[in-house]
């Protein structure tokens, strides 16, 4: 095997942009949708995208999803331990 170069998963066409939200943005998000943090969809801490970002359990990830109907929109997932 040749030298293993680590492949950046965010370059793949199937992977949308991921970003960690700051504490203020997290508050703002929960206020905007009037939800508790446990009501967010989840993402495992072992998920390759989370590992690549270096997010910790408790962080909220903002995902910029491409959509055939809306162009793009934002989706949020709470990082949880597996």
């Amino acid at each position: 095997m040749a030298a293993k170069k680590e492949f950046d998963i965010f370059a793949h066409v199937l992977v949308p942009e991921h970003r960690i939200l700051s504490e203020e943005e997290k508050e703002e998000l929960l206020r905007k949708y009037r939800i508790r943090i446990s009501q967010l969809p989840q993402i495992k801490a072992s998920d390759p995208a989370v590992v690549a970002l270096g997010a910790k359990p408790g962080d909220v990830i903002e995902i910029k999803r491409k959509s055939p109907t809306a162009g793009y929109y934002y989706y949020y997932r709470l990082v949880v331990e597996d």
Partner: protein
Amino acid sequence: MLMVSEKTIKNLVEKADLPASVKEELYEKLVEYNKRYDLKKTEVEAIIEETVKEYQNALVEPGEAIGTVAAQSIGEPSTQMTLNTFHYAGVAEINVTLGLPRIIEIVDARKNPSTPIMTVYLDEKHRYDREKALEVARRIEGTTLENLAREETIDILNFEYIVEIDPERLEKAGLDMEKVRRKLEGSFKSAEFEVDGYTLIVRPKKAAKLSDLRRLAEKVKKHRLKGLSGVGKTIIRKEGDEYVIYTEGSNFKQVLKVPGVDPTRTRTNNIHEIAEVLGIEAARNAIIEEIVNTMREQGLEVDVRHIMLVADVMTLDGVILPIGRHGVVGEKASVLARAAFEITTQHLFEAAERGETDPLNGVVENVLIGQPVPVGTGIVKLAMNLPLRPKRE
């Protein structure tokens, strides 16, 4: 009268509460109409306002039973699908599960699809040349001694296993006898390998029972000489102006590391592998694409929004959950909802044992006990501050 500039239109459109694709379309249309009719600023504003109003009217009402609508919208076309098709458009040599069995496979989130396939795209250097594409295909294609053999015999007298190798196939695989011998020697310490022309002789080091020789022969035959594990035949097909490799079998993690492969576009139809390598969001996209493609293959069109909802529900917890009693339904919070679906008694017994309470928030449990269902107008609750004592004047 001053004409409205494109920049002003852009700014006004940007401020509107609309999704990105609608904004873009609105902007283009406004610019076009502005050229033709010389709109005033107030007119532009009025158009935008009207668009926002139309958009909001088109939104799904709160309380709409979107899950039921999605289920029916996918379910009805499914009745028109062929029950069993095994073919692949263009590549006749590779079988692919299509139609209803494939949809069931995706929705059930099977660990391994019945016909795993990878679509391998190539990088700039290897994309346009058939020879170079073949070179990459050889690196991926799994080859065993069995694939190369023309004839094999077990010589009981001399206690040997003899394999006659087809020189043509050997060359096609990019191997030679010496490489084969070295590879096998590295993997099987308990046997000796001898090469004589295009004949390979395998001799166990210790004389043992005949059944041992047979077992060894079987192992040697199946041993992978090159390529990726789990991958079998590969087929090269020209798509547009580039060559694409299709593989029977899938090993997504390894194939991305193969030199000559474009790792940004290569994909597999095994959704679990995608989730493992690229994450849950990529898996969601893969589920949507797989379902849409399978439907389209059958000449059916389902609105993507329904499929997006299915994919969202399946990936809600960060792992791919199947739709059914082991997945989405089995995870429901309400005992009655779970019991109403499948294995009724077991759910009721377990709930009784744990002393579960059911707050009756969902749809199914309210249907079950004959209450108004929290859907549509039923979702609205009335709260009222009654005066404790009626006031009298």
